[in-house]
């Protein structure tokens, strides 16, 4: 049999992605909560001479699709030559339901009995040989995180079989599962561990909320501490001591006030280069992503990675469910919002976790307006924070109030109701430190690869627009709104234009405009609200459809107009 396409199928959060990355060597994000994988991820593995495609299918409980994600998983099944059914060894009974459904489809199956390492701690003993006999397909115990059993899984792939199973009713399936489990699995009593007790505390209403507040507070405190530390002790000294002399030399070579000097070095401020103000491609363009944004991106994703792998996010989702219902969502929408704080792109991608169109629309609009990405936050903290912490409070406070008010309004105005939460809580797991750093590196590398070129391009673009006097022309056109309504200088139009490309650069552009603190606060807030960056926009169009996206964009621009005007009046 020639194997061209291998599908990894299993319940949510059983470690499909971990096995996928072991099989293919591909780097993908793995976390401890159901729904980490929302897109199909393709990769190639090696079996002898062949190099079949492996597809990491989003988790599903059943092949009788009950949600959109499951529907897609089912459709994929027709294209596969072989299924690796990833089964959670600590929850055999429930997982076998999907296995039996798979076997009915007459597709060759191999079972990876994953999370094998945890069975012992939990007092679960599974007779693998007997299980193999009962299911008539190969069963291989694995541990995706450590890679245990993966080699054996690969060598046994050719043994995959499609046993002759008749299509049976649900109750027959459960009966058969009951018999299988009874004859292959032994449960012994196990003592509650500290982590299990913590699981209970963090899901109870009172202790849960106390824990949630503490976790969120500590998380932001740690993000700030690490981010500021990296800036003060690593990146700023690096730029001041190594990059600045180099740039000063280059500046001398290029000669003052030439076109190239203006583009590459930018303006000389008080006789030297100011990385925040000069606005050349190699000065500010390089300084913004590397020394202002990267430290916060790294620290944010480090902390998020720990929370993800520990399994905390779904608990936070449940605790906030009540509140989220008032704004037309259910608790699990917390996950896209948290991811959106890092970067709106993965946030928008994970909108797929939400099922209904209404819910997606609300979540997307709320995120685009009120959830600034870490790159933007870092810049706002860097620029506005200099003027005083209370001004940061105004910017983020405004966004937070908007989040709630808009949510309440959309929930009232849009027809329909918010769907209910139904989610499995993953057990708490001590994060593997290597896994956390691997994930952190993937995300930081993604930022360097995808964001930094855009930032450089953005700064280049803006300098060219200035050189061609296009900014001047546009600033005249938009002056009524900018100056009349928002009280900003008309040159701020350049920031709004670049905001379509990169929000961090856009905020950075407010720096050289010599704004008053009030103007800086208004400008930063508007830049967060008025429109998503191009990368987020593209994903949002794909997830929402063009019609809903237009509606959402109209709301964003309207809100930006209003908020700018109101802030201008009251500050």
């Amino acid at each position, binding site marked *: 049999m020639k194997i061209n396409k291998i599908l990894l199928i299993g319940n949510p959060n059983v470690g499909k992605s971990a096995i996928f990355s072991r099989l293919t060597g591909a780097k993908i994000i793995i976390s401890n909560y159901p729904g980490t994988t929302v897109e199909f991820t393709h990769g190639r593995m090696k079996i002898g001479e062949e190099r079949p495609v492996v597809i990491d299918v989003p988790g599903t*409980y*059943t092949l*009788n699709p*009950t*949600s959109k994600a499951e529907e897609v998983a089912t459709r994929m099944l027709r294209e596969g030559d072989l299924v690796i059914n990833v089964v959670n060894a*600590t*929850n055999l*009974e*429930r997982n076998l*339901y*999907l296995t039996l459904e798979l076997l009915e489809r007459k597709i060759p199956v191999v079972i990876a009995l994953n999370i094998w390492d945890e069975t012992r701690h*939990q007092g679960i003993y599974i007779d693998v040989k007997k299980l193999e006999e009962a299911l008539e397909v190969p069963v291989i115990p694995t541990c995706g995180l450590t890679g245990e059993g993966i080699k054996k899984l690969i060598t046994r792939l050719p043994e995959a079989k499609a046993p002759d199973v008749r299509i049976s009713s*649900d109750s027959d399936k*459960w009966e058969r599962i009951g018999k299988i489990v009874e004859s292959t699995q032994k449960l012994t009593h196990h003592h509650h561990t500290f982590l299990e007790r913590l*699981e*209970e505390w963090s*899901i*109870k*209403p009172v202790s*849960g909320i106390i824990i949630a507040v503490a976790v969120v507070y500590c998380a932001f405190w740690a993000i700030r501490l690490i981010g500021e530390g990296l800036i003060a002790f690593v990146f700023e000294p690096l730029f001041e001591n190594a990059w600045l002399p180099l740039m000063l030399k280059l500046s001398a070579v290029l000669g003052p006030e030439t076109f190239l000097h203006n583009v590459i070095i930018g303006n000389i401020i008080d006789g030297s280069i100011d990385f925040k103000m000069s606005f050349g491609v190699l000065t500010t363009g390089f300084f913004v992503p590397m020394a202002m944004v990267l430290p916060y991106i790294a620290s944010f994703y480090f902390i998020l990675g720990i929370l993800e792998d520990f399994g905390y996010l*779904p608990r936070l*989702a*449940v*605790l906030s*469910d*009540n509140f989220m219902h008032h704004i037309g969502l*259910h*608790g699990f929408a917390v996950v896209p919002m948290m991811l959106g704080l890092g970067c709106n792109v993965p946030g928008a991608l994970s909108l797929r976790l939400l099922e209904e169109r209404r819910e997606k629309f609300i979540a997307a609009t709320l995120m685009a307006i009120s959830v600034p990405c870490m790159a933007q936050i870092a810049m706002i903290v860097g620029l506005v924070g200099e003027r005083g912490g209370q001004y940061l409070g105004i910017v983020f406070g405004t966004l937070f109030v908007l989040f709630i008010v808009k949510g309440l309004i959309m929930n009232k105005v849009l027809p329909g109701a918010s*769907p*209910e*939460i*139904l*989610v*499995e*809580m993953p*057990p708490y797991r001590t994060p593997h430190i290597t896994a956390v750093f691997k994930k952190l590196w993937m995300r930081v590398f993604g930022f360097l690869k995808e964001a930094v070129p855009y930032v450089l391009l953005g700064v280049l673009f803006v300098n060219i627009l200035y050189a061609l006097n296009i900014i001047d022309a546009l600033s005249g056109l938009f002056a009524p709104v900018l100056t009349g309504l928002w009280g900003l200088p008309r040159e701020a139009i350049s920031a709004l234009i670049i905001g379509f490309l990169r929000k961090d650069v856009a905020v950075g552009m407010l720096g050289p405009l010599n704004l008053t603190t009030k103007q800086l606060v208004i400008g930063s807030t508007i830049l967060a609200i008025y429109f998503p960056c191009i990368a987020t926009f593209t994903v949002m169009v794909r997830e929402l459809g063009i019609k809903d996206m237009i509606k959402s964009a109209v709301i964003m621009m309207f809100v930006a107009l209003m908020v700018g005007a109101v802030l201008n009046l009251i500050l």
Partner: protein
Amino acid sequence: MIVDLTQMRTGESGIIKELRGGCGFERRINSMGLRPGKQIKKVSSHFWRGPQTVEVDRVCFSIGFGMAKKISIEVKGENK
């Protein structure tokens, strides 16, 4: 005594009796491992008709209030 899931007290255990919410709902809940005959323990219940958290087969689930209303349980009594 038969109650629905929202009426169970925290810490109480029981047996799932029936899912009353149409075929799609039933199948969805079933496939997650919550099905009639299973022992179920209520772990927590959130304020203001918030989600109900239960444990079945050592796995913890959170279920929205409305859905929980549709799950009836035969209660055995306290099990702390």
